[in-house]
């Protein structure tokens, strides 16, 4: 390469490269492991789809909340205490008997961290990112989420600053359940739009 130092392909284990960069950054004062471990711990254990599930359950039992969620999702989600990076500009899209919504990020891995946590590998994978915009009905069927005609599938590619959450339809027969019990029915995949409840 023209810069004389550029090495475009790895020949060393990734673990060794992590260790090398980590030790260099500690030495430079860029990384303070003790200070940042709380952040890592937060995203590994305290944040996840259980947050989004509470939002969905609230929308199912509280019509005024549902309307706020669909008109200003960021504020409505913050009412339940969920906010932060990758969740500053939220939009909630609602499934109905004739519309099924599904979210993808074709360019990278954009995902609503405060309500779903960090994304699973499949969401970031080339098969999902390439195919969900090209053949959503086929791919959803393959993933165990068939959407029969004439329902429309609406694909949302989060290519700018908005992060999306799908509001799934409330399952039939869930009329007698409490809000907490309803939240227990809501899955991560349903809030991405690749599963039914």
């Amino acid at each position, binding site marked *: 390469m023209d810069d004389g130092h550029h090495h475009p392909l790895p020949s060393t284990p990734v673990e060794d*490269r992590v260790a090398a960069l980590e030790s260099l*950054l500690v030495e430079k004062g860029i990384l303070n492991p003790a200070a940042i471990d709380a952040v890592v711990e937060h995203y590994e254990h305290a944040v996840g789809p259980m947050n989004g599930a509470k939002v969905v359950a609230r929308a199912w039992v509280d019509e005024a909340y549902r309307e706020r969620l669909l008109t200003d999702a960021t504020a409505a989600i913050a009412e339940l205490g969920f906010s932060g990076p990758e969740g500053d500009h939220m939009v909630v899209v609602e499934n109905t008997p004739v519309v099924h919504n599904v979210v993808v990020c074709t360019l990278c891995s954009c995902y609503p961290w405060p309500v779903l946590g960090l994304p699973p590998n499949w969401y970031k994978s080339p098969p999902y990112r390439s195919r969900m915009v090209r053949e959503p009905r086929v791919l959803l069927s393959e993933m165990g989420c068939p959407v029969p005609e004439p329902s429309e599938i609406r694909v949302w590619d989060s290519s700018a600053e908005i992060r999306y959450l799908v509001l799934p339809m409330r399952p039939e027969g869930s009329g007698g359940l409490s809000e907490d019990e309803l939240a227990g029915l809501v899955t991560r995949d349903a809030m991405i739009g690749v599963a039914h409840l």
Partner: protein
Amino acid sequence: MHDLGGMQGFGPVEVEPEEPVFHSDWERRAYRLTVSALLAGHLNGRFRHAIERMDPTWYLESPYYEHWLTATATGLVEGGFITQAELDERLGAPYPVARPVRAPRLDDPGPSVEIHRYRIGEAVRVREWHPVGHTRAPRYVQGKPGVVVRLDGVFSLPDVEYHCDAIRLEPTYSVRFEAVDLWGAAGDPVHVDLWESYLQSREESVHG
């Protein structure tokens, strides 16, 4: 290699049941050092574009957090916070980074725009927009007609931010594209979020 929308040949989506947030300790450590560098403001305008400049075969074959590791190393070298020689010395081998930036640095970010030019329901077309630098205009909607369905906030235009010391603010939109316009056959619509610079009105477009 990152601009994957609509590409063929990738096969089934492989879902790992009960997937952990991190698959191994190195993933957690790569996440930690990347978040540290981001929080310190050392990667602004470099992180995503560094991932995009990874060699295509490496990008496709490597785990996600290896992208983060590589982009952090690349961005910190390019920002002058560490040197390639320090990385090589610490690893005891050539430390692989992303390919060099090809886009020229911008001296002038251009004027910010804070008022949406297009309205909900307006027919627009995506400009043919294929810069050598960073952009958030996916290839699969280039030149395609769509309709504005939602007006979103005013945000820094990534095409400028990643190649300039200053930013240009612009309105963003959600634009609906019909499958027949994207793929030439009936199917389901796709909505893509786009900055105003990526769009033109149908009247301005040579295609109408």
